[in-house]
């Protein structure tokens, strides 16, 4: 089973994607999508990082909800920062020490930081223990770093465990 | 009302495209132009979708999807080229 379907979730996702692209749910589309979902994971198996198992789905849903809410609210905040006078902004580089170890989880964490307005993840150190983040406006560096870790890294650690 | 909202949105998107174009012309570095180009891709997708609502047809979604993909690949390839002097190593 493991050999035929190396990534069952990916296969299902590819099938859904194919149906979305086709914009139809006929039998032909489903068969073609199933073929895509069967062949692509086998062909690309070598390139896939080691994706950790999701431990708690309710926490994942909660994480996504918090993330979407933050994107919305903080975007309005950033819009005001951009429209306001630039002298009021205090851009800083922040250094976020990482507790996550898995490549995939770090990517999710960095992408979350980049999409939550006010911060762009800019660089990761070679040993994957330090994330350099550019922040558009912050009063207190340490407080912002603590908030990022508390709000995004802790739930990710609970969801994926590494 | 929807027609007017759509036209207002189209005008706003055109304005932002012009701003991106200014940044692309002004520079000052090549990477600034890459950022402007990346923003232009996204704004072009928005314009296509607004145009679709204007025309009441769903014919252009494939175009929007293609622009989204090409924009991403183009931006990453350019950044990688400026970073390493090579795109595929």
């Amino acid at each position, binding site marked *: 089973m493991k050999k035929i379907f190396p990534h069952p979730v990916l296969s299902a996702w590819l099938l859904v994607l194919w149906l*979305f*692209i086709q*914009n139809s749910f006929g039998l032909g589309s489903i068969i073609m999508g199933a073929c895509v979902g069967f062949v692509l994971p086998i062909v690309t198996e070598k390139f896939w990082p080691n994706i950790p198992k999701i431990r708690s789905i309710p926490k994942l849903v909660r994480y996504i909800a918090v993330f979407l809410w933050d994107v919305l609210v903080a*975007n309005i905040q*950033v819009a005001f920062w*951009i429209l306001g006078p*630039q002298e009021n902004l205090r*851009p*800083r*580089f922040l*250094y976020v020490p990482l507790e996550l170890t898995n490549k995939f989880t770090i990517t999710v964490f*960095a*992408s979350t930081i980049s*999409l939550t*307005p*006010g911060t*762009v*993840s*800019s*660089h990761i*150190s*070679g*040993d994957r*223990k*330090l994330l*350099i983040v*550019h922040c558009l406006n912050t009063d207190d560096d340490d407080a912002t770093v603590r908030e990022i870790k508390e709000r995004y890294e802790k739930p990710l650690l609970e969801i994926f465990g590494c | 009302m*929807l027609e007017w*909202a*759509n036209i*207002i*949105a*189209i005008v*706003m*998107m055109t*304005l*932002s495209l012009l*701003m*991106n174009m200014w940044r692309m012309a002004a520079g000052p*570095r*090549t*990477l*600034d132009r*890459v*950022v402007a180009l990346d923003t232009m891709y*996204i704004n072009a997708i*928005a314009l296509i979708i607004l145009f679709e*609502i204007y025309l009441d047809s769903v014919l252009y*979604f494939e175009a929007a*999807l293609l622009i989204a993909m090409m924009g*991403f690949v183009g*931006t990453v390839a350019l*950044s*990688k*080229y*400026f*970073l*390493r*002097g*090579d795109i595929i190593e």
Partner: protein
Amino acid sequence: MAFWLEIVVSFFLVAGAAFALIGSWGLVKLDDFYMRLHGPTKATTLGLGGILLASALYFNFNPDVAGVSIHEVLITIFLFITAPVSAHMMAKTALQKHFDYVGGQQDPLNHPRNVHTIQEHDLSGMDESQIPDGDEEE
């Protein structure tokens, strides 16, 4: 088409376009490269998200328009996955090229905990002249 739906669609259209406009304004106005990166990656992405939501509502709940359209979902997902990646690539390149920035901190790459590994930064195999310069030649 129901009137309330028309109001909702119009609201999302104008709000999305306004966010995109603010993002582009940030691209024009702000001073250094890193600050400019904030506008396009986030305000513009959310703006396009709003427009796509309006389009999804319009095409799926409007009896006058034939057909169902779920491509918006696809474009939105794709955009929300790719926008941070391209922003990260550009910020990383700018850091490597030592672009100047507002704020007067020390160079972030010189932070004591920033470890350079071989596979990340080894350019020794390359001829120095082959590495393109991100800077414009005057």
